[in-house]
């Protein structure tokens, strides 16, 4: 250290700490800044100090670490120091911010308005009161002179001599351009600037105050008007005087039916009148619009509920009742129809009237209609259809089978994992984590599966703590309880069987662990080799197959493989592109799930086989799912699409990766193959007895079930079950047809709206076809 500088850590009075500059003792925020500072300020200084800087910083850091252990005050500093090593943030990803600054002027505004309004209200009221006085006598039957006297008594008239020019237009008054007085404020104007308040309007304007006064007693108020408020009494006099008044009207335009007033008073009165009108008047469009919004709110409220139900039902779950869901669907659809009808009504409001409404009104109506259409389009399309009764039964059965299969697999996997863990030679992470590890890094890319993957991790760490077998036993016990509660006897029986087996297994395992260890090792290795061989063969075969099917798009796949990491939607595109077969599934709605068997049928593959294929070819994928959710009931939220499609996607991804990386990827493969082996074991060991049993056990209850609940109007349930494997266009359930017709109608409507005539044609053709099919069906069933 250069002697000219005081030793930094043995300062006399105050003790400084943190990132201090060794030369000038300046306190800097971080290592980085210290370095900056040093280079800036002291780069010219003695060179050899620089070497010491680092050791000093080390010392400082050590001292700080000690401090930090005592109290964590300085943590933010270390944080910022570390954050230096992270990358920056894309502006699109900047954290959300609060609303920008605002300033409210309403108080100030109100203060000034209040003063103004008081003045205005007084003016208006004054006019109204005068108007009332002027109209409260029978003008017809009183001669002009009297009227004038009364009028003058209401408001003092401005003297003629004071006003040589019309105050509004500035014309000089003379014999031809005579002065006129406003009866409401007494001011003078010329004839041109004169306005009249017709009596009906005057009555209307004063009606409010009149009513109010009639309560307090109109009699006391009427005397100043002279004529008296008794209308019926005056009627008798009318005939006798009318001739006289008609004479006077010849002399001077008589204000029988109207009251003279100036522009300004008229203006005020008109505003008042407008306000009165608007107060009670609710235009049709508002009424309709309110109903429209009500329907939209209802849909917003009901649709998610329905979608939840439909998803669950389409997954073959029994949480909801099919009929309730059907009812809800009807309800929601009714709302859509209402929305459509209401918005159409709004659109055509006033179209037939003459004159046509203002163009802005029309524009408003168009916009409301457009919004409603958008709403219907967006929401209606998310409205998946329900399975028909038969299909639902099938789904239920399938789900059950799947669950059982998964259960047995889980059990076996758990066993294998247990064995593996104890296997001292194989301490690869893959072994201890049920062969799940190779999936883990890939998991985030599987956007569809996002729902359950995270939970599987936590579950899994729990699992590692205990003996998986014991845990499995626990799980099965809890399933048993649940199944009992749900009165699913077949499942109970099966689970009990499982439990027994597991317990046996556990006992056995404890004893034979040591002996089996070496044996298993050898066995596994040979198996692995076999599997590796098999896997490679299959991969090669499939790759060739794929290469054929997507030769044109092969170049594209590289790019989307890259984009997969970027965005969810990107990966969705990628999946759709990568594999045509998968496209309908990728839509993720169970709706397409039902279309799926038919599609694959065309590809000459039956869905069970495909599913099998999915499970078989890519055990890691299937297994990742299975082992991840130890509790099968937890998976109830996941859509059915997941099961068949996920392994598939995985497979595809894997392949592309492979294509991209060439043969470098041996490690993951080895691990996969490990998983495969487990799978193989699982199926070999338990597949047969269970499957047989399932068929025996479950065949009956289902038949019963279908017997109990009479099948829908369409087909025989047994037939349906048979058909399911290879559904045909001939046997389309009526419900489905009706739904489809509904949907297509919606599209036709939409297409028409947007003027795509070709589409309309196409769609209406479809519609006709569908209707024909429906007719045929009906005739068949009857």
């Amino acid at each position, binding site marked *: 250290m250069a002697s000219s500088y005081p030793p930094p850590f043995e300062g006399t009075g105050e003790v400084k700490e943190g990132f201090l500059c060794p030369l000038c003792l300046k306190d800097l*925020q971080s290592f980085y800044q210290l370095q900056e500072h040093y280079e800036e300020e002291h780069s010219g200084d003695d060179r050899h100090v620089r070497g010491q800087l680092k050791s000093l910083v080390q010392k400082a850091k050590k001292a700080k670490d000690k401090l930090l252990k005592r109290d964590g005050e300085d943590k933010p500093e270390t944080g910022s120091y570390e954050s230096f090593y992270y990358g920056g943030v894309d502006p699109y990803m900047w954290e959300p911010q609060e609303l920008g600054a605002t300033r409210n002027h309403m108080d100030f505004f109100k203060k000034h308005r209040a003063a*103004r309004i008081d003045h205005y209200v007084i003016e208006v009221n004054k006019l109204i009161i005068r108007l009332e006085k002027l109209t409260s006598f029978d003008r017809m039957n009183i001669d002009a002179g009297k009227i004038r006297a009364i009028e003058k008594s209401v408001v003092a008239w401005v003297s003629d001599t004071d006003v040589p020019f019309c105050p509004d237009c500035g014309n000089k008054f003379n014999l031809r351009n005579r002065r006129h007085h406003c009866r409401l404020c007494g001011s003078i104007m010329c004839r041109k600037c004169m306005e009249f308040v017709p009596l009906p309007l005057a009555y209307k304007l004063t009606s409010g105050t009149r009513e109010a006064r009639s309560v307090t007693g109109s009699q006391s108020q009427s005397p100043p008007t002279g004529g008296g408020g008794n209308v019926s009494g005056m009627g008798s006099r009318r005939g006798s005087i009318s001739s006289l008044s008609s004479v006077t009207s010849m002399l001077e335009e008589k204000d029988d039916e109207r009251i003279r007033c100036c522009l300004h008073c008229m203006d005020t009165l008109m505003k008042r009148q407008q306000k009165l009108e608007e107060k009670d008047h609710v235009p049709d469009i508002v009424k309709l619009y309110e109903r429209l919004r009500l329907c939209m709110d209802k849909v917003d409220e009901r649709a998610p509920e329905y979608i939840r139900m439909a998803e669950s039902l389409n997954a073959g779950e029994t949480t909801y009742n099919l009929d309730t869901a059907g009812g809800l669907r009807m309800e929601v659809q009714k709302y859509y129809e209402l929305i459509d009808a209401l918005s159409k009504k709004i659109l055509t409001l006033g179209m037939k009237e003459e004159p046509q409404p203002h163009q802005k009104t029309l524009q408003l109506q168009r916009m409301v209609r457009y919004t409603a259409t958008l709403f219907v*389009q967006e929401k209606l399309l998310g409205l998946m259809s329900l399975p028909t009764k038969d299909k639902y039964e099938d789904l239920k059965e399938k789900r059950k089978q799947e669950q059982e299969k998964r259960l047995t697999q889980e059990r076996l996997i758990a066993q294998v994992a247990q064995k593996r863990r104890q296997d001292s030679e194989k301490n690869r992470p893959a072994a201890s984590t049920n062969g799940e590890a190779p999936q883990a890094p890939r998991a985030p890319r599987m956007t569809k599966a996002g729902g359950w993957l995270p939970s599987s991790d936590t579950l899994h760490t729990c699992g590692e703590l205990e003996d998986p077998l014991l845990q499995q036993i626990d799980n099965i016990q809890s399933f048993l309880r649940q199944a009992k509660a749900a009165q699913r006897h077949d499942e109970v029986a099966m689970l009990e069987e499982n439990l027994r087996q597991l317990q046996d297994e556990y006992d056995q395992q404890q004893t034979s662990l040591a002996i089996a260890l070496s044996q298993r090792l050898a066995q596994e290795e040979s198996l692995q080799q076999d599997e590796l061989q098999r896997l490679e063969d299959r991969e090669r075969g499939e790759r060739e197959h794929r290469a054929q099917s997507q030769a044109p798009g092969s170049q594209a796949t590289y790019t989307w493989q890259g*984009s997969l990491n970027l965005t969810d939607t990107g990966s969705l595109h990628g999946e759709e592109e990568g594999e045509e077969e998968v496209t309908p599934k990728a839509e993720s709605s169970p709706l397409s799930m039902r279309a799926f068997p038919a599609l694959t049928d065309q590809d000459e593959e039956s869905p069970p086989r495909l599913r099998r294929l999915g499970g078989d070819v890519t055990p890691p994928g299937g297994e990742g799912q299975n082992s991840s959710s130890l509790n099968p009931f937890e998976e109830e939220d996941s859509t059915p699409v997941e099961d068949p499609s996920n392994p598939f996607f995985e497979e595809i991804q894997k392949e592309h990766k492979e294509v991209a990386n060439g043969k470098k990827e041996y490690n993951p493969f080895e691990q996969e193959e490990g998983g495969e082996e487990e799978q193989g074991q699982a199926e070999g060991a338990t597949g047969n007895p269970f499957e047989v049993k399932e068929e025996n056990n479950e065949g009956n209850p289902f038949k019963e079930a279908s017997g109990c609940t009479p099948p829908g109007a369409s087909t025989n349930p047994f037939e349906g079950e048979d058909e399911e494997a290879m559904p045909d266009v001939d046997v389309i359930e009526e419900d489905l047809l009706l739904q*489809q017709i509904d949907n297509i109608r919606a599209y036709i409507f939409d297409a028409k709206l947007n003027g795509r005539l070709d589409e309309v044609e196409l769609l209406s053709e479809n519609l006709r076809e569908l209707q024909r099919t429906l007719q045929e069906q009906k005739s068949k069933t009857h």
Partner: protein
Amino acid sequence: MNVTLAVKQYISKMIENSGPGMKVLLMDKETTSIVSVVYTQSEILQKEVYLFERIDSQNRDNMKHLKAICFLRPTKENVENLIQELRRPKYSVYFIYFSNVISKSEIKALAEADEQEVVAEVQEFYGDFIAVNPHLFSLNLSGVARGRSWEPTLLPRTTQGLTSVLLALKKCPMIRYQLSSDMAKRLGESVKQIITKEYELFDFRKTEVPPLLLILDRSDDAITPLLNQWTYQAMVHELLGLNNNRIDLSRVPGISKDLKEVVLSAENDEFYANNLYLNFGEIGTNIKNLMEDFQKKKPKEQQKLESISDMKAFVDNYPQFKKMSGTVSKHVTVVGELSRLVSERQLMEVSELEQELACQNDHSSASQNVRRLLQNPRVSEMDAVRLVMLYALRYERHSSSILPGLMEELNRKGVSEKHCRMVTSMVEYGGKRVRGSDLVNPQDAVAITKQFFKGLKGVENVYTQHAPLLQETLDQLIKGRLKDSHFPYLGPSSLRDRPQDIIVFVIGGATYEEALAIYNLNRTVPGVRIVLGGTTIHNTKSFLEEVTLTAGAGQAERLQRAGGHPNRR
């Protein structure tokens, strides 16, 4: 720090404040652009706003069943129009929002006009700028300079815009400005004045490191806006012209009716958002993928829908299909037009030479190439002029400059007199005399070594060698190395720490190339958030107009002064 979000939040707050029911949005010309850049029609329709009206439009009907949300700049005309509107209200309730600070006297005038008590809200919401991207804003002002000083009316307007950005982002910054530019200093002072005057408004929660406002002048880097661009957004702006995220395609041969004007908004166009900053080649690949994607879906429409599953698939795909068909045809058209222009104008060659002029230091090769390209008949007038301009800026003081020869060449090519004069204007605008920084010839050793290494390594992409000066400036700023002597602080205090939130404002307009550089800085430098703004966003064409306006006025000024002096004597 997200400017788009800031405006969006303001607007959705306005709509929220007005409650349920049918609404109309009353705007002026400028606020219309401000709103339309951040919101699409369908988005805003969903919030029950069904009509969009201009406050100065006469063709408005009484619609008492509508609520009016007024979003206006606090100009005299707007206040006057609003007073008329309130005297005879056409709508039932008025929610009034001014995009900037409004005077008390004007509020009083409005209050007095509101005799029918229709006003329910009077507030200031500081969305007084065009939020182009989350980190990029513009004020859509052109011709801000008259010679070397401000066009008098535009200084207050620019100040308003800039302070509204600060308020919308809730930043009360320290200000640094470019010393060589008097305009930068004036703007800085003007902003500072507002901050002092409206200190209550700027009283935000203090952050550890205060934000920084850096004010720069376009004339310091006249080269960047002269270069052809190869990233999607920048290229679209350069060749087609992006105006409030809209492009006018009506001049494209054989364009269909509904594509005459298209919107390119990263907010709701996923393809655009993903490709905004990719270069032309990558976009080509991506658009191909998009097409293939589309074609895969399309057959379902064309082939007869034979089975129920076909129909179902079609119906299922329908909304995506519809959305996609819009996106596909839009981007295919745009990219197609871009590539047509590229080949028609031989932009590859032009751009290569531009980059050579901007980034390399070989006078003889450069002058040869410029001469060669000027003789090429397919190079457009505009491109020829810009090459000469680049040469003039780059080798302004070179001993063996062939500028006169090149000017002759331009004349021979038949380039209009107006364009030829622009070359001189450009040198006057951004020449060495004006510049505060070393735009072309790095002086210090580090920069020279850097350039040397760059030369050694070879160039990755000849079309994207150039990095705007702004990038270097900000790099130094972030590292705390930006010299106070060139970029002094306004006021006594200066920033001790590494800056975290930075707002850069370029007087005379920013460019999309700079926006990209800032975007990349944001992504790569941790702990720093940078927002770029400009009086406008330039492409070469608008930049040339700006320079012509500036220089033309400058000359006039000087002539006047020259003419004025003798008279006085």
